[in-house]
C-alpha cells in the first residue's frame, strides 16, 4: 500500500497531494500542468516535497517531521519515463541487467533471459535502443523496471505522443503487465480513455490539489467537481443558481431545470453528458428549445451543436450526441435534459 500526503511549492504553483493506493493500478488523472508528474517525482525521490509523508508498505520513504528522505536508489520505486530513458550506450540486454545491481552473474543472466522471454524481447538482446521500435523500447524499459524488483511502479504518461495503432498495442502490453504485477502501480494520464481499461480506481488532480480516490464508474456517474467532469469528457458544463423547490437556474443557457433530488448547495455548476441529452417535444420536462448551429460527423455518431433560444451570446453551444444519420434537418429542435442525468458539480 502506498500512502502519499505531501505539499510542495514551486514558484507560484502549489501542490497538495493526498491519496492512498492499495495493491492495484491507480490512475492519477489531471489536465497538463496540474502537478501529476511532480507528484510522481516526489514519490520517486527525484524531487523533495516541502512537507508531508510518503509511506510504501510500512516503509517510510519521506517524512518531513521525522527528517526522513530516502535517496531514490533505496526507495525501490520503478519509474517509466515518457520517453523511456533507456541507456543509449548499452544493448537491450545490458539495459535490463542494469536494473539488477550486483548479483551473481549467472543468476543475473538467467533472470535477464527470463524477463526477455516474458516480454518477447529475445530478438532484441544485442540491439541498441535506437535500433528498437517504440514498442520494443517500452518493453525493454518495463523489463528493466521489473529486473529491479520494485515495490511500486510509476507510469508517467506512458502512451502520450504515440500514434493510435502503436498506442493500442502498448496499452494492451501495459494492461497485461499491470495485471500480473500484483503490487501498487500509479498511472499518470490526462486522458480518461487511456487509463479506464487498466485502472479500477482514480484520483483526480486539479491545479495541484488531489481529490479523494474514487471508482472509475463514480467518475463517470457522479464526478462531483467541474475538473473531474471535464476529464471524464463531459462537454456541457454551466454555472447554476438554485431556484428553489429542487430547481436550478442556468443563466448561460437561459433555462430553469428540474432535478430529481434537492440541489446540493456546494454545487456551483451543472454538467450533462452529450450522449444523455435527447431530442424531444416541448411538453417534456426540462425541454429546451434550441437553434441548430452545426452538425459534426463523429466516428460512429453524429454530434449536434445547439444554441438554446434564451442562451447568452457568449455561451458555448450544447453538445448532443445522436446515432449516425439521426440528425434532424430542422432549423429548430427541442433538446431534453433528463433530470436524473444532471450532474451537480462543485468548482
Amino acid at each position, binding site marked *: 500500500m502506498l500512502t502519499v500526503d505531501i505539499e510542495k511549492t514551486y514558484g507560484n504553483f502549489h501542490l497538495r497531494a493526498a491519496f492512498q493506493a492499495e495493491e492495484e493500478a491507480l490512475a492519477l488523472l489531471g489536465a497538463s500542468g496540474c502537478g501529476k508528474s511532480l507528484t510522481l517525482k516526489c514519490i*520517486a*525521490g*527525484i524531487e523533495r516535497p516541502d512537507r508531508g509523508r510518503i509511506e510504501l508498505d510500512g516503509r517510510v520513504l519521506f517524512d518531513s517531521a521525522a527528517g526522513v528522505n530516502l*535517496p*531514490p*536508489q533505496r*526507495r525501490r*520505486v*520503478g*519509474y517509466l*519515463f515518457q*520517453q*523511456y*530513458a*533507456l*541507456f*543509449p*550506450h548499452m544493448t537491450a540486454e545490458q539495459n535490463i541487467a*542494469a*536494473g539488477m*545491481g550486483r548479483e551473481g552473474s549467472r543468476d543475473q543472466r538467467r533472470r535477464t533471459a527470463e524477463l526477455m522471454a516474458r516480454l518477447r524481447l529475445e530478438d532484441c538482446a544485442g540491439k541498441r*535502443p*535506437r535500433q528498437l521500435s517504440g514498442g520494443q*523500447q517500452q518493453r525493454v524499459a518495463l523489463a*528493466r*523496471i521489473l*529486473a*529491479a524488483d520494485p515495490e511500486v511502479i510509476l507510469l508517467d504518461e506512458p502512451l502520450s505522443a504515440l500514434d493510435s495503432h502503436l498506442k493500442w498495442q502498448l496499452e494492451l502490453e501495459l494492461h497485461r503487465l499491470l495485471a500480473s504485477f500484483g503490487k501498487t502501480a500509479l498511472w499518470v494520464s490526462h486522458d480518461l480513455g487511456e487509463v479506464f481499461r487498466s485502472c479500477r480506481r482514480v484520483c483526480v488532480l486539479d491545479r495541484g490539489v488531489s481529490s479523494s480516490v474514487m471508482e472509475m464508474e463514480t467518475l463517470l456517474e457522479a464526478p462531483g467537481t467541474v475538473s473531474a467532469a471535464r476529464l471524464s469528457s463531459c462537454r456541457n458544463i454551466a454555472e447554476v443558481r438554485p431556484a428553489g423547490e429542487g430547481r436550478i437556474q442556468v443563466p448561460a443557457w437561459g433555462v430553469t431545470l428540474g432535478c430529481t433530488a434537492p440541489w446540493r448547495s456546494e454545487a456551483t455548476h451543472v454538467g450533462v453528458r452529450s450522449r444523455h441529452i435527447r431530442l424531444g417535444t416541448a411538453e417534456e420536462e426540462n425541454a429546451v428549445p434550441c437553434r441548430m448551429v452545426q452538425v459534426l460527423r463523429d466516428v460512429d455518431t453524429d454530434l449536434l451543436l445547439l444554441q438554446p433560444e434564451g442562451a447568452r451570446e457568449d455561451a458555448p453551444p450544447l453538445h448532443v450526441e445522436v446515432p449516425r444519420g439521426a440528425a434532424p434537418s430542422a432549423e429548430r429542435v427541442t433538446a431534453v435534459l433528463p433530470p436524473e442525468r444532471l450532474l451537480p458539480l462543485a468548482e
Partner: protein
Amino acid sequence: MMRRGGWFPLVCGLMTLAALALVGSNVAVIAVRGLKSLPACLVQPEVRFALGLSVKSACISTALCFLLAAPTAYTLTRTALPGRRAAEMVLELTMSLPYIVLGLSMLILFSSPAGKWLKEAGFPVVFHQNGVILAQLVVNLPFAVRLCAAAFRGVDRKLECTAGLLGASPAQQFFTVLLPLSKNALISAVILVWSRALGEFGATLMLVGVTRMKTETLPGSIYLAVSTNNLDAALASAFLLLVLSALSLTAASLLGRSSEKRSRYV
C-alpha cells in the same frame, strides 16, 4: 562564377585569402625552415631534453588536470552547491587572465613560507620541473572544468535519475552512465588541454624560468635559442611543436566526428 551584384562575397573572399596568407605563411616558414634544421638539432641533447620534458609534463599535468576538473564539473553541474555562481566566476576570471599574471601570483605563493615548507618537505616548485607541471595545471584547470561541464551538461539528467531509481549509487551513476555518455566530448577535451599544456610558456617562465637541461620545455627552448641568436635551433623546436599540434588536432577532429555521428538516443 560571380553572380550579379556579388561584390560582397568577392570582398569577403579576398579578405579570406589575406587572412590565410597571414596565418599560413607562418606555418609554412616553420614547416620549411624548421624541417631543414631539424636533423642537426635533433642530435643536440638540449632539444631532445626539451621535447622529453614538454611531452612528459604535458601528460602529467593533463592527467592531474582532469583528475580535478571532472569532479569539479560534476559538482558544478549535478549538485546544488551554495555559492556555485561565485565558484564559476572565479574559474571564468582566471581563464581570461594573462598567463604571465597567473605565473607571477604562483611565484609569490610558492616563495612564501608555505612554499618553502613544501620545498623542505621534498616538493620544490620554484625553479624546478614540478613548477612546470604546476604552471600548466593551474593555467589549464579552469579551461578543463569548462570543457568537462559542457560535456556533462550534454547528458540527459533523466538517465542518471533512472539509474538511481534502479538502485545505482551516485558514484555508480557517474561511472556507468555519465562518464560513458560524455566519453567522446571528454576525449576531445583531454587532447585540447594536452596541446595547450604543451604550448604553455608565460606562467612557466615566471614560476620556474628557463634553465638549460633543467627546466627547458620546447617553448622555453625557442626563447633561449632566439635570445642566443641560434635561429636554426629555435625553428627546429618550433617545428616539433607544429608536428605535435597537428597530431593532436587530427586526433581531436577524428574523435569529434565520431561523436557527431552518434545519434540522439530515442
